[in-house]
């Protein structure tokens, strides 16, 4: 071994003269054969699909025509209103269940756990059918003077609101609970120390901080809710899928109208996604790893 000392950047040792000098050779740009094969296959598939849709038995002018039909637009409106309403109910119930779940009272805790188990354990569609047909169990609702026929109360819209909202509440309660648990115990104590009651400290101190953890999953759940409302079509709530079905029962343009509904759903969901991000940024205020 002959330790060489040479100027920086130069060859430093011995023997490499035995190796061929490749310094003048140019590098052939890399071609990712397998990769481009995959791309080609996918492109072919997509092209085939597009062609099939174009020449297939879809009449695109029907899609265009019905895209803004009054029935469809009113269905769209109902979808959005129902999503907002059911989500609001879900959030209210979710907060109540989360607070009950964290109470010291075992009965309240048990009720909250049972609620989540029951409604997370059964399909929404089944819950909707049960609410809609509630009159088979309770012909009337209320006591004595104040009693109504269940069917008058339990319209498709009300059944959908209850079914979707109560089901959502079971999921939201978990989100809320995670949010509240994410707030440091010291925050409760600091709130108490300046004379706040438990309820006021939840409202002023704990929830605003929990929001940062709560908003992202809640945004996802809201987008899920938009799509969930489609199930209310089976109980005759006139949301957008129901509207589309009503039209195709009359004119047999099944695929065309399903496509109309699909495009509308994609539009709503695509609009909401950046909205969710804005909201998340808004609630990250003052965060930065303190505490």
């Amino acid at each position, binding site marked *: 071994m002959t330790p060489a000392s040479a100027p920086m950047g130069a060859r430093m040792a011995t023997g490499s003269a035995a190796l061929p000098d490749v310094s003048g050779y140019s590098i052939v740009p890399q071609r990712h054969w397998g990769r481009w094969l995959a791309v080609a296959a996918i492109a072919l598939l997509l092209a085939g699909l597009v062609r099939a849709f174009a020449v297939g038995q879809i009449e695109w002018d029907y899609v265009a025509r019905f895209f803004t039909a009054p029935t469809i637009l009113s269905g769209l409106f109902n979808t959005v209103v129902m999503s907002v309403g059911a989500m609001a109910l879900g959030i209210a119930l979710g907060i109540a269940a989360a607070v009950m779940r964290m109470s010291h009272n075992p009965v309240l805790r048990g009720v909250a756990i049972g609620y989540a188990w029951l409604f997370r354990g059964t399909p929404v569609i089944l819950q909707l059918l049960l609410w809609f047909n509630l009159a088979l169990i309770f012909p009337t609702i209320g006591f004595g003077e104040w009693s109504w026929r269940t069917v008058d109360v339990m319209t498709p819209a009300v059944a959908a609101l209850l079914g979707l909202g109560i089901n959502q509440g079971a999921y939201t309660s978990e989100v809320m609970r995670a949010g509240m648990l994410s707030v440091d115990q010291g925050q409760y104590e600091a*709130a*108490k*120390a*300046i004379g*706040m009651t438990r309820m006021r400290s939840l409202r002023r101190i704990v929830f605003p901080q929990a929001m940062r953890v709560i908003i992202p999953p809640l945004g996802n759940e809201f987008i899920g809710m938009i799509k969930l409302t489609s199930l209310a079509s089976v109980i005759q709530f006139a949301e957008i899928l129901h509207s589309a079905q009503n039209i195709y029962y009359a004119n047999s343009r099944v695929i065309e109208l399903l496509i109309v509904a699909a495009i509308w759903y994609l539009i709503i969901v695509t609009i909401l996604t950046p909205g969710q991000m804005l909201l998340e940024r808004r609630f990250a205020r*003052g*965060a*930065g790893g303190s505490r």
Partner: protein
Amino acid sequence: MSAPPASPPLVSIVDVHKHFGGFHALKGVSLDVMPGEVMCIIGASGSGKTTLLRCINQLVEIDRGAIWVDGELTGFRVDGGRLHHLAEAEIARQRLATGMVFQRFNLFPHMTALENIIEGPVQVQRRRRAEAVEEARALLARVGLADKEASYPANLSGGQQQRVAIARALAMKPKLMLFDEPTSALDPELVGEVLAAMKELAASGMTMIVVTHELGFAREVADRVVYMDGGLIVEAGTAADVLNSPREARTRAFLSAVLS
């Protein structure tokens, strides 16, 4: 025991016991704090110092004994020779007499320094916002943070956060301030600024109970020093007595451990 003094004590703790599950954290603590007095509590980890403070402002409920603050029995109402628990709202009202500063600051991270300070006056005491803001600004100036009112806690150093926390407690105009190791979560170079704010407060005549390991502060500021061990008060007296010539062997052992 001794003759009645001129004014009644601000805090009177009588034979207080506290269990956590099977663990006996306070084993009968009695202590009076006079108005304007600064009392330092020292003692080893786990000796019950924090628990005692938390009993005084009712973050923890006592099992036996009684605590009077400003002439009121805390947490209970006497009726027919029996003690009845007070409602939550009553307890919240009683807590207004005490301010508390925590080891870990516990500022509200979603509020600016100013908002942290006015939260209590506006939301709890229902005072006018403009007035609360004016006072809050004065308090911030007093703890040397006049320029930080719009900063969120995450953007303040530990020492600055703790000074905001002191201002937040003072904003409620408490009769008594409790400090639970207010400097022990701070980097050494930040301890001084917080101690300075506390000294200024003591000089202004505030009644203070301070749990601390800063013996220098205790020696300089405390009227009395209390040494706790195993849920009991082992020794109490002037700072000079307790810190320089402790009577109890346990106190001596503790002091020599802390000083080395």
